[in-house]
C-alpha cells in the first residue's frame, strides 16, 4: 500500500488533542448493537408507507382511499386533508438552509398539486409492511397532468410552466410582484468591474452545467412516531438535528414544541440530506389515528426520487487577469435548481464562487429557481462545489495561456487575512495559502507523472463553516469518570472529538469521558450536525463545561482541605494546595471524596459562537488516466490538503477529507439524476453510480493547522470543504491528459469520448 497521511499534530501543545483514541461508540458499531433509526421496534408497532406521485407535475382532482382503508390489516390512511389547518407561515432557519413551513407541509403531503415525481400524496399504516404496500396500490388518485420543466435554464424562461401560482421573484430582497419560477435574484458587487476587465490582458469566459446529485447516505430516511392520548408525541428518527425535527414537526402539526420529544437514533449518514422532515409528521398523524406507534422507512427509490438532491446548476463565469497572472476582475451568473420549492443554497454559492482569490473587482448574480424536481437539500458545502468547478477550470486556463504553474497562479492570487470578499466579508487569519504551499511541497506534486493519456490537475476550494448554538452537560462520577451529555448527533466520530476537548481541559484521558447524545428533553438546545460546526461549537461547549467543572472542583478541594478557594490551584490534572504543596489530589481522588463534599458536580456549556468568516480551505491534487477508446477515467493518485485549524482526532479529520474526496470524485465522474420526460430514470444504487472501493485509490491527506483565531483550541470545521475542489481538479487533469476541456458534470465516458473525437476532427480539419 502506497500513500501516507501526514499532519502537524496539535501544534505540539496538547496532551489529548491530536491523539487517536478509539471512538466511544465504536464497539457497538462493529458488533451490530448500535441502534439506528431503521432499527426501531416498539410493542404493537405498525408499518407505514407513502404513496408518491408518478408524474412530475399534475393537479390532484381527487383521491379515493376507500379501497385501501378497507384492506384487511390496514389501520389508517391519511392525505393532506388530515393535516391540521395551516397556521401562520413561518420561516425555520436550520444552519444550512431555511424552510418555509407552508412548503414543508406541501412537501410531506401534497395539497392540490404534485410538483415532482415522488411527491408524497398519501400515507398508510398497516400491520405489516407488505400490507401497507398493497394498500398503496388501492389508492386511486385522479391527476390532471400539467406541463413540466426540469432544466434550470428552461425553468427561468418567461414561457416556462409555472409551479406555484403565488410565487413572485424576490429581487434583491424586495418583492418584484412578477410571477416566475425564479424565486429570488441576489447580487454581490465589489470594486469597478468594467475597469477591472479593461485593465486585463487576458479574459476567459465560459458556461458550465452540473447535474443533480444525491448525498447517497446508506441508511434510508425513517421515522417512528408514537402519539399518546395525553397529547405527547415522541419521534425516533435518524436526523442531523433533533431540535430541527422537533421544530418542523410541531410546526406542521400545529402543536407546541414542548409536546414533541425527538429522540435522535444513530444516523447512517446525512451529508446535509437529513435535515428536513420527510416522514415524521405523517407517522405522527397515523399514530394519532390508530393509537399505535407507526414506523415509516423509505425505499431506496423513494430516497432518490423524493429527498435530497443538491441543486443542478448553470454557472457562467468571466475572469480577467494581467500578464503576470494577477486576477483583476471576476463576474459570475449562477442559477441553482432549487427543486419544487424555493431555498437552494444560492447565497452560499454566490459567497463561495470567488472566495479563494483576492480579486479587487467582482460582480455575482445568483438565481434561486423552482422546477419539477424534488425539493433540493443541503449537500456537503452546499453550493460551493458547483461554482468552484467553473472558477477553478478557468483559473487553470489562464495559467495555461500565460505558461504559469497552476499552483503559482493560485498562490499569486490566494485569499489572505484582511482581504475583502465579493460579498463584503473581510477574512481573518485563514489557511488558503498554506494548503497551496503544502500541496506544492508534497511528494505527489514533486513526482513527475509519466505515461500516455495521463494528466495531473489541481484545484483549491472553500467552505465557510458555521458556529451557532450547542449545549453540553457534564456530570462527574465518583470513580473519576465523566458523563457528557451533548446535543449533536454523531455522524462521523464527533462523540470522540467533543469528549477529547473536554478531557484536554481537565487533563483526563479521553477514555475517562463517556459522551452521550441527548434527546430534545434531556439536553439544552443544540443546532444540527451540519455546517462543519460540531467539533467547533459543541467542542467549545465541552470546553466551557469542563471549565465549570474545574471551578466547582476547586471549591470542593478547598472544602476538603478546609482552605480558602484562592489557595487551590489546578495544574497538570491535579488540584494543589498553594501554600502546602504536599496536599495534592488527582481528579480521580477528588471525585472519590465528592459524596462527602456537598454532592454532585455538574458543569454546563451553552454557547452560540460566531465562527467568523474564516472557514476552511482545501487544495487537492488528482492524477488520472483517460482511456481514449472509451472515455473512461481512472484515478491514479489523489491527495487532499486541508486547513483543520487544530486537528482534534486526526483519524477522523482524515476521514472527513477522504470521504469528501470520494464524494467529489463521484460528482465529477459518474453521479447524476438522469431525467427523461421529467422522470428520474436511475433511482437505484445500481444505476446511480457512486464510487466503490474498486474505483478509488488510497486518498492521501495532509492536515494543515492554521488555528482558528477565536476558538479556545483553534478548531476549524473540517466536514465539508474537501468535496469542493475534486471535480475541477479532475477536469484539469483530464485536460492535461487528453487536451479536452469538460464543462459539464458529470464527466461521463461518453462526454469525454465525444470531446476527444471533436478535438481529433478539428485537428484533421486544420
Amino acid at each position, binding site marked *: 500500500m502506497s500513500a501516507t497521511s501526514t499532519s502537524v499534530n496539535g501544534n505540539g501543545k496538547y496532551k489529548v488533542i491530536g491523539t487517536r483514541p478509539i471512538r466511544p*461508540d465504536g464497539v457497538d458499531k462493529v458488533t451490530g448493537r448500535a441502534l439506528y433509526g431503521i432499527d426501531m421496534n416498539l410493542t404493537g408497532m405498525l408499518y407505514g408507507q407513502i404513496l408518491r406521485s408518478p408524474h412530475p407535475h399534475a393537479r390532484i382532482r381527487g383521491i379515493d382511499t376507500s379501497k385501501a382503508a378497507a384492506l384487511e390489516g390496514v389501520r389508517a390512511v391519511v392525505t393532506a386533508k388530515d393535516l391540521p389547518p395551516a397556521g401562520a407561515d413561518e420561516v425555520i432557519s436550520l444552519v444550512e438552509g431555511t424552510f418555509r413551513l407552508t412548503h414543508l407541509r406541501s412537501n410531506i403531503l401534497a395539497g392540490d398539486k404534485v410538483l415532482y415525481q415522488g411527491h408524497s400524496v398519501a400515507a398508510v399504516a398497516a400491520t405489516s409492511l407488505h400490507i401497507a404496500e398493497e394498500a398503496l396500490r388501492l389508492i386511486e388518485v385522479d391527476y390532471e397532468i400539467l406541463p413540466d420543466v426540469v432544466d434550470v435554464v428552461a425553468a427561468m424562461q418567461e414561457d416556462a410552466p409555472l409551479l406555484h401560482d403565488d410565487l413572485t421573484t424576490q429581487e434583491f430582497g424586495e418583492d418584484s410582484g412578477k410571477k416566475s419560477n425564479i424565486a429570488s435574484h441576489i447580487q454581490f458587487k465589489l470594486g469597478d468591474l468594467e475597469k477591472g476587465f479593461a485593465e486585463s490582458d487576458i479574459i476567459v469566459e465560459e458556461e458550465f452545467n452540473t447535474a443533480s446529485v444525491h448525498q*447517497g447516505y446508506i441508511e434510508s430516511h425513517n421515522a417512528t412516531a408514537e402519539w399518546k392520548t395525553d397529547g405527547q408525541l415522541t419521534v425516533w428518527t435518524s436526523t442531523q438535528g433533533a431540535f430541527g425535527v422537533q421544530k418542523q414537526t410541531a410546526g406542521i402539526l400545529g402543536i407546541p414544541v414542548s409536546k414533541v420529544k425527538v429522540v435522535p437514533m444513530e444516523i*447512517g449518514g446525512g451529508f446535509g440530506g437529513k435535515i428536513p422532515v420527510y416522514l415524521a409528521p405523517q407517522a405522527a398523524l397515523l399514530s394519532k389515528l390508530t393509537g399505535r406507534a407507526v414506523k415509516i422507512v423509505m425505499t431506496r427509490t423513494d430516497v432518490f426520487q423524493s429527498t435530497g438532491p443538491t441543486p443542478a446548476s448553470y454557472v457562467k463565469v468571466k475572469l480577467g487577469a494581467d500578464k503576470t497572472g494577477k486576477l483583476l476582475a471576476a463576474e459570475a451568473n449562477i442559477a441553482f435548481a432549487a427543486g419544487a420549492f424555493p431555498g437552494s443554497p444560492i447565497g452560499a454559492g454566490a459567497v463561495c464562487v470567488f472566495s479563494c482569490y483576492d480579486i479587487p473587482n467582482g460582480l455575482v448574480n445568483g438565481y434561486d429557481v423552482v422546477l419539477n424536481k424534488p425539493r433540493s437539500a443541503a449537500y456537503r458545502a452546499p453550493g460551493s462545489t458547483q461554482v468552484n468547478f467553473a472558477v477553478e477550470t478557468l483559473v487553470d486556463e489562464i495559467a495555461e495561456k500565460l505558461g504559469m504553474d497552476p499552483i503559482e497562479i493560485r498562490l499569486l492570487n490566494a485569499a489572505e487575512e484582511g482581504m475583502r470578499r465579493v460579498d463584503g466579508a473581510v477574512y481573518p487569519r485563514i489557511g488558503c495559502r498554506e494548503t497551496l504551499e503544502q500541496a506544492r511541497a508534497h511528494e505527489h506534486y514533486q513526482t513527475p507523472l509519466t505515461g500516455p493519456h495521463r494528466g495531473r490537475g489541481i484545484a483549491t476550494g472553500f467552505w465557510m463553516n458555521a458556529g451557532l448554538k450547542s449545549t453540553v452537560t457534564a456530570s462527574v462520577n465518583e470513580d473519576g469518570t465523566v458523563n457528557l451529555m451533548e446535543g449533536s448527533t454523531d455522524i462521523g466520530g464527533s462523540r470522540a472529538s467533543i469528549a477529547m476537548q473536554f478531557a484536554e481541559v481537565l487533563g483526563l484521558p479521553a477514555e475517562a469521558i463517556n459522551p452521550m447524545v441527548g434527546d430534545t428533553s434531556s439536553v439544552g438546545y443544540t443546532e444540527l450536525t451540519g455546517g462543519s460546526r460540531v467539533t467547533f461549537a459543541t467542542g467549545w461547549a465541552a470546553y466551557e463545561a469542563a471549565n465549570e467543572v474545574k471551578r466547582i472542583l476547586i471549591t470542593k478541594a478547598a472544602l476538603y482541605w478546609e482552605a480558602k478557594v484562592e489557595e487551590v490551584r489546578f495544574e497538570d490534572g491535579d488540584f494543589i494546595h498553594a501554600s502546602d504543596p504536599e496536599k495534592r489530589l488527582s481528579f480521580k481522588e477528588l471525585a472519590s471524596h465528592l459524596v462527602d463534599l456537598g454532592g454532585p458536580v455538574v458543569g454546563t456549556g451553552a454557547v452560540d459562537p460566531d465562527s467568523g468568516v474564516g472557514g476552511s480551505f482545501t487544495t487537492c491534487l488528482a492524477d488520472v488516466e483517460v482511456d481514449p477508446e472509451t472515455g473512461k477515467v481512472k484515478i491514479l493518485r489523489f491527495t487532499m490538503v486541508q486547513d483543520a485549524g487544530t486537528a482534534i482526532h486526526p483519524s477522523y479529520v482524515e*476521514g472527513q477529507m*477522504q470521504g469528501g474526496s470520494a*464524494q467529489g470524485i463521484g460528482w465529477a465522474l459518474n453521479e447524476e439524476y438522469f431525467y427523461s420526460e421529467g422522470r428520474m430514470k436511475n433511482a437505484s*444504487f445500481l444505476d446511480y453510480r457512486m464510487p466503490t*472501493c474498486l474505483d478509488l485509490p*488510497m486518498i492521501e491527506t495532509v492536515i494543515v493547522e492554521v488555528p482558528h483565531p477565536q476558538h479556545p483550541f483553534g478548531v476549524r470545521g473540517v466536514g465539508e470543504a474537501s468535496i469542493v475542489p475534486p471535480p475541477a481538479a479532475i477536469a484539469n487533469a483530464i485536460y492535461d491528459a487528453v487536451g479536452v476541456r469538460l464543462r459539464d458534470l458529470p464527466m461521463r465516458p461518453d462526454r469525454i469520448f465525444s470531446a476527444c473525437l471533436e478535438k481529433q476532427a478539428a485537428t484533421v480539419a486544420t
Partner: protein
Amino acid sequence: MSRKLYVNTTINGEEIEFLCEPRQSLLEVLRDDLEMTGTKEGCNDGNCGACNVIMDGVLMNSCLVLAAEAQNRNISTIEGLATPQGLHPLQQKFLENASLQCGVCTPGFLMAAKSLLDHNPDPTEHEVRHWLAGNLCRCTGYDKIVRAVCDAADVVKETA
C-alpha cells in the same frame, strides 16, 4: 394472507426455528422477526451490501435471499462475529483504523471482509478492493476500510 412457512435453520451456531410468509426476505425476517438488527438494510435490491451475511460459506446479500431458503442452512451474521472472549481482528482493526464514520455499512463490510479472509487469508490491496466492491460506503472513501482489512489479515495469519 398466505399460509406461513416453517423454517429450521442455524444462525451463528444456534439452531433457530421461525415462521415466515413466502414473500419475506431473509433480511426482513432477521431484522423484523428475529430482532437481529445488526444486519442493515440499505437498498433492498442487492446493490449496497449493507445486509451481507455468510450462508454455507458463501457471501450473500440477505435482501436477495428468501427467508424460506434458509431451511437447513448455516448462516453467520454480524451478531456472531465477536466472541465472549473478544472482538474479531477485523472488528478490532476497524476500530483502530477509524474505518467507520456513521457505521451503518460497517456490519456488511465486516461480513464481506470475513468472507474474503476465509477464502483468501493473504489478499493484496487490489484483491481487497475487488472483493469489497459490492459494498457501498459513503462516508470514508474506503481508504481506512481497506487498510483495516489488510491489517486484520496480518493478525489472522499470525494467530492461525
